[in-house]
């Protein structure tokens, strides 16, 4: 009987030790890279930076009517040393109005990518793509959190040439007359999966 009790305790300690070791391994993998060891090689952390070096997103429009569209181009650059695995868009409105709270008849957003820089004309701004285009975000209600974006390059050192199209649907009724919203855009990127280094 005493032997069995001893075996159970051993099992408990073994599992706990394994868990602790796994935890430490995890921390070792994902904690900051700035810690150093006695080994002679240097381990430096990578960097991620997602910026919009060119952007018309700050150019508003007034006054617009039902059926109007606004095109605004911007570049999304991935600098640093680590590529991104994915990117999302979060939009918010302050001040807010029916233009952003009405998901059906309020403002809608779509994003397209051009394989090269968009050719701009205007204002009012319109854009043509000399290369190939792909859809980054299909038309949807403007306001959202962590909206998944697709077809982005995401590679460190590269830039995606994007065009946002904001539309006030033709179905927008009279309740959306004389409304005002100010929209902010946040593009978030997450690093690629860890690999052997």
């Amino acid at each position, binding site marked *: *009987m005493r032997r069995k*009790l001893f075996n159970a305790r051993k099992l408990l300690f073994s599992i706990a030790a394994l868990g602790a070791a796994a935890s430490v391994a995890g921390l070792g993998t*994902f904690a900051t890279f700035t810690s150093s060891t006695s080994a002679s090689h240097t381990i430096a952390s990578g960097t991620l930076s997602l910026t919009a070096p060119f952007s018309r997103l700050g150019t508003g429009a007034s006054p617009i*009517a039902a059926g109007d569209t606004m095109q605004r181009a911007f570049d999304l650059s991935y600098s640093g040393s680590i590529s991104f695995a994915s990117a999302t868009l979060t939009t918010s409105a302050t001040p807010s109005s029916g233009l952003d709270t009405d998901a059906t008849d309020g403002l809608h957003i779509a994003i397209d990518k051009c394989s090269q820089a968009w050719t701009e004309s205007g204002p009012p701004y319109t854009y043509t793509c000399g290369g190939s285009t792909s859809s980054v975000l299909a038309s949807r209600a403007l306001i959202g959190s962590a909206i998944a974006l697709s077809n982005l390059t995401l590679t460190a050192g590269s830039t995606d040439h994007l065009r946002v199209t904001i539309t006030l649907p033709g179905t927008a009724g*009279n309740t959306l007359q004389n*409304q005002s919203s*100010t929209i*902010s855009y946040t593009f978030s990127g997450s690093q690629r999966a860890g690999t052997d280094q």
Partner: protein
Amino acid sequence: MRARRSRRSPRARSSAGVRLAAVAGSTLAAFVVSSLALAGFNSAGTGGPMSVTTKRIFSGSRSTFPNDLRDASSGAASNKSDPLAYDDGIVDATGAWANAFSATRFFQADFNSSRPAGVPTSSVNFNIKYAGVATGNACIYKIELRRVSDGGLVGTLDHSASPLCSTGTTYRVVNEDISTYVTSTDVANDLRIKIFGYETASKAWNIEYATVTGTSYSAWTLFDTTVTDQSTGTAATTPWSIATAEATGAAGTIYTDASNWPSAAPAGTKYLQVTFDHPDLPTGAVVQSVTLRNIWRAAAAVTNGGTLCNYFEVYNGATLVETHGGTTQATAQSCNNSNVTWQTDNATLTLVDTVAEANSMTIKFYYWIAPICGGGGNPTCVKSVTDQVQATFTYYLD
């Protein structure tokens, strides 16, 4: 003191230990998985802020009718305007009221819906000028605001404690602030005002005007489309004759001019004139189009191959803006020899393209019988009948 001993068997205690170890291990494993899932670098870039503002008034078509009508078919203009529209000496005489309030006796006006929808309103007033026709006093006991569409009550102005009475035949002007109830053009465009009253000598009232005024970016005025006089207890409904297209030709729904139109060619002094003095396009509006509809026919069949023709002129005040149709049968705006079939003329007034022109638009319709009328064997000379004159203004306001 003796240590308390477990009553469980060693085997049971061993099993408990295993379970505890499993839980501990699972927790640690979960922590590791969480670390794998949630760790990693993130970066965010921002854009904007982008300000978006919509037009104050979206593009849309708003129709209205003229309330100012002058009949110069005889060669001398006569004022045939809507009795309730203007302070012009042309009154709407009601039936005889009771000498005290009665819930079944009222005078009701439905107003036109010429305002762009969905716009906030302010300074909205119901304006009425009225008097008794004899020695008694005309008194307003209460006023109800209702929806034309469903009759629903919007609000009540209760003066039962102190009725608003004229002094005999001396007109009383009442301007009731109804801004509390009429807060948007959606309400204004669907407005019925029902006046409960009495006359201290059980006589009729004369109503000089009954209008609704307000502001939505600019001042506007609404006129009556239809009046229901139930002062006697029995309803009598009268539309403004040229406001709507009933196509019945029934008395009260049409306007028949006073004199036969001239023969062979129009005369510069003989015309029907209407003025759209309250389209009330707001200052700064962009006029996209203006169209005019005139629905008419002959008052009697034009016999012997003749026909009744017209052309019309568009004025801004005294300034001629444009002319539609010519002075011969071949060039006329339209011709119609029937006293049954309605002729509908729709014309786009391309040169009415400013707010000032739209807000003060006078139309002169010149009629004549072609090729000739009167005399033995010739077509008969006839009057015209007008069912509707309507202008539609398409505009927006940035």
